C-alpha cells in the first residue's frame, strides 16, 4: 500500500474562502426577521380560505363505509417512484422554476417565511389561507406560465407577509392542478412550519413549504382540510367528479385526523357515512369541530376523540337538516360558520333558486332559531364569523354581505366592477381583516377588507 493518504491530503488542504455576493447579509437579515415573526405566530382560526365551486350531487355508489376500519396512511418521499397500484400517484409534474433572479434548487428552498423570488407571472390562485393578520399563502396553477412550467402543468404557491399586498414564491409540491383523482388545488398552514396541500391528493410540509412529502394510503380524495390545536383534519371522500371538479359527485366520506408532523392519519370515529359532502363542510374552532354532510351535522372535539351526528333536541329544525322525524327539504343545502370560542353556530340553508335562511344555534347544533329570510341576493357560498366579535360576512354568487348580529344584513362595498359569478369565499382572519375570493376555478386577484367586511379592496396576486 502507498504512503499517500488522499483522506489526509484532502483534510489538510485549507478551505478556500468564498466571499458573499453584495447584498447577501441584507437579504439574510430580512428573511430571518420574517421567520422570527412567524415563530411567534399562533394559529388563527377562520382564516382558511377556499376557492372551490365544485357541484355536489347526491348519488349512492359504494365507497367509504361508516365505521370503516382505520386505514393507516404513510408519508412518502415525493421524489421517489410511486408504488405500483397507486394510480393516483403516477402524475408527478416537476415543480415550477419560479421567475426571479435565478431558479431555486434545494437545499435553499423557499418557505412561507419568505423568499426573494416572485410567483410565476401566469400564476392563478385556487386557494388562499392566512395564519395571522400578516402572513398567508396562496396555491394555484402556474400552467399558463411557459417559463415556469415548460410543457407540463404544474402547481405554484405564493406567500405574503403583508396580508396580500405583495407576494413571493414558495416551493410547491410536485403535483399538477386537480384532474379527477390527481393533483392539488388547496393549501392550509397550521403555523409557519406545518402545512398541507390537498385536493384531491395530499402533501405535507413541516418546514413552511420549503419541502413537501406526499401522503399516501388514504381511501379517497381529500376534498377538505382544516387545522387547529396542532392537528389537521381531512375529509376523505369517494367522488366521481372529473377534471377540476374533483370534489363533485361525492357520495361517501370519512374524517381523518393527524397530529402535525406525525405523518400518521387515523380515521375519526363517528364521522363517516354514505352521504354527500362538499368542500367547506369541515369547520373547526379551538374547542369544537363540525362537519356538514348532506342533511346531517357531525360534531366532536377538535383536539381528538370521537365525533357523532348531532341530534336536534328541540325548537326549529333548519330546512337543510334532518331532525326530530323530519327530513331536510329536497334540494336545500347548508353552509356552516362556527363561532370561536364557544358552541355557537350559524347555518345558512338555501335551495339553488331560493333565498337563504340563516339559523343560529347556541349549543352546537342541538337547537336552532331563525328570524326568517336574511335578504341576501344570490346563492350563499361562504359564511364566516369574526374572531372575538359577532361580525359575520357572507359571500354569495351576487356579492359580499356583512352583519353585526346575523339577523340584519348589509351589502358590502366592493372596489371596481363586481366579479362575474360573485364570490366563492369570504372569511375574517381578525376582527377587522378578511379576504374574499371571486368565483371561478382560478383567479388572479382577491379582495381584502380591513373594516370587518364593510368595504373590500382588490389586490393582485
Amino acid at each position, binding site marked *: 500500500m502507498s504512503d499517500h493518504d488522499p*483522506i489526509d491530503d484532502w483534510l489538510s488542504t485549507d478551505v478556500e*474562502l468564498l*466571499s458573499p455576493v453584495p447584498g447577501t447579509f441584507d437579504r*439574510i437579515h430580512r428573511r430571518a426577521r420574517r*421567520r422570527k415573526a412567524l415563530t411567534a405566530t399562533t394559529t388563527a382560526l377562520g382564516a382558511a380560505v377556499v376557492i372551490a365551486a365544485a357541484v355536489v350531487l347526491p348519488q349512492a355508489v359504494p365507497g367509504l363505509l361508516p365505521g370503516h376500519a382505520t386505514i393507516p396512511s404513510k408519508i412518502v418521499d415525493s421524489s421517489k417512484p410511486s408504488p405500483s397500484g397507486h394510480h393516483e400517484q403516477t402524475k408527478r409534474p416537476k415543480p415550477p422554476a419560479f421567475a426571479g433572479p435565478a431558479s431555486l434548487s434545494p*437545499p*435553499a428552498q423557499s418557505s412561507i417565511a419568505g423568499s426573494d423570488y416572485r410567483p410565476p407571472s401566469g400564476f392563478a390562485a385556487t386557494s388562499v389561507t392566512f395564519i395571522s393578520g400578516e402572513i398567508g399563502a396562496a396555491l394555484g396553477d402556474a400552467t399558463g406560465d411557459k417559463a415556469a412550467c415548460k410543457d407540463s402543468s404544474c402547481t405554484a404557491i405564493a406567500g405574503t407577509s403583508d396580508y396580500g399586498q405583495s407576494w413571493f414564491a414558495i416551493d410547491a409540491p410536485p403535483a399538477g392542478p386537480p384532474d379527477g383523482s390527481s393533483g392539488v388545488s388547496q393549501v392550509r398552514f397550521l403555523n409557519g412550519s406545518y402545512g398541507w396541500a390537498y385536493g384531491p391528493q395530499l402533501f405535507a410540509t413541516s418546514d413552511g413549504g420549503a419541502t413537501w412529502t406526499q401522503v399516501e394510503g388514504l381511501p379517497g380524495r381529500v376534498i377538505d382540510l382544516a387545522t387547529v390545536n396542532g392537528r389537521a383534519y381531512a375529509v376523505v371522500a369517494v367522488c366521481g367528479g372529473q377534471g377540476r371538479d374533483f370534489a363533485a359527485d361525492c357520495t361517501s366520506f370519512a374524517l381523518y385526523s393527524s397530529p402535525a408532523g406525525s405523518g400518521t392519519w387515523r380515521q375519526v370515529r363517528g364521522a363517516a357515512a354514505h352521504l354527500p359532502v362538499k368542500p367547506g363542510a369541515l369547520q373547526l374552532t379551538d374547542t369544537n369541530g363540525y362537519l356538514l354532510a348532506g342533511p346531517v351535522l357531525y360534531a366532536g372535539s377538535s383536539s381528538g376523540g370521537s365525533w357523532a351526528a348531532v341530534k336536534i333536541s328541540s325548537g326549529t329544525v333548519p330546512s337543510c337538516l334532518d331532525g326530530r322525524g323530519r327530513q331536510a327539504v329536497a334540494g336545500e343545502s347548508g353552509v356552516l360558520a362556527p363561532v370561536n370560542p364557544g358552541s355557537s353556530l350559524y347555518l345558512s340553508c338555501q335551495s339553488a333558486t331560493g333565498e337563504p335562511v340563516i339559523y343560529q344555534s347556541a349549543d352546537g347544533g342541538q337547537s336552532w332559531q331563525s328570524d326568517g329570510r336574511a335578504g341576501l341576493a344570490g346563492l350563499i357560498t361562504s359564511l364566516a364569523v369574526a374572531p372575538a366579535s359577532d361580525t359575520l360576512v357572507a359571500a354569495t354568487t351576487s356579492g359580499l354581505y356583512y352583519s353585526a348580529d346575523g339577523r340584519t344584513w348589509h351589502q358590502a362595498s366592493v372596489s371596481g366592477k363586481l366579479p362575474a359569478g360573485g364570490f366563492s369565499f369570504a372569511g375574517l382572519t381578525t376582527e377587522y381583516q378578511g379576504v374574499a375570493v371571486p368565483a371561478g376555478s382560478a383567479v388572479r386577484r382577491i379582495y381584502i377588507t380591513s373594516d370587518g367586511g364593510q368595504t373590500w379592496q382588490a389586490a393582485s396576486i
Partner: protein
Amino acid sequence: MVQLRSGDREAAEELFNACYPRLAGWCRRLVDDDETAHEIASEAFTRLLSRWSKLDNPQSYLYMIATNLVRDHWRKTSRERRAIKTFTASTPEEPAWHQSEDVDVRALIEELPPKLRSAFLLHYYAGFGVKEVATMLGRPEGTVKADLHHARARLKAAVGEHA
C-alpha cells in the same frame, strides 16, 4: 465567542463578515459548486439569525445546519445520479465519460453512514473538538470518538478499494 442579543444587527453583521467566507468555502468544498455553496451558507445564516437570542454557540449552530443542508444536497444529487445512471444504462451506444482517476474523497465521505459523516465533517473538516462535536450532536464523547475512528477506518478501506 460573539454574544448574540435580540435585534443586534451590528453583532449579526460582524458574525456574518467573520464566518460567512469560510463557511461558504467549506460548503463549496463539499458540494463542488459556488452557487449551491452560497445557497447553503445563506440558509444556515438565515436560520441562525431567526433564532438570534436562543443560541449559546452560533458558530457550532452554523456548521451543524450547514452539515445537514449539505447532507440534503448530497441526498438529492445522489438520486439524480441514480436516475441518470439508470437512463444511461439503457443507452450503451454513448461511450462512458470518466472523471479523474484520482480518488474522489468527497464522494467517499458522502457514502459514509449519516451518523459517522456528521461527526467526521464537524471534527476533521470544520475543526471542532470532540467535546464540542459531542455537544452539537447530542452524543457522549466516547461515542463520537468511536464514530470518528470508524469513519476513518471506512474511508481508508474505501480508498483501498478505489486504488
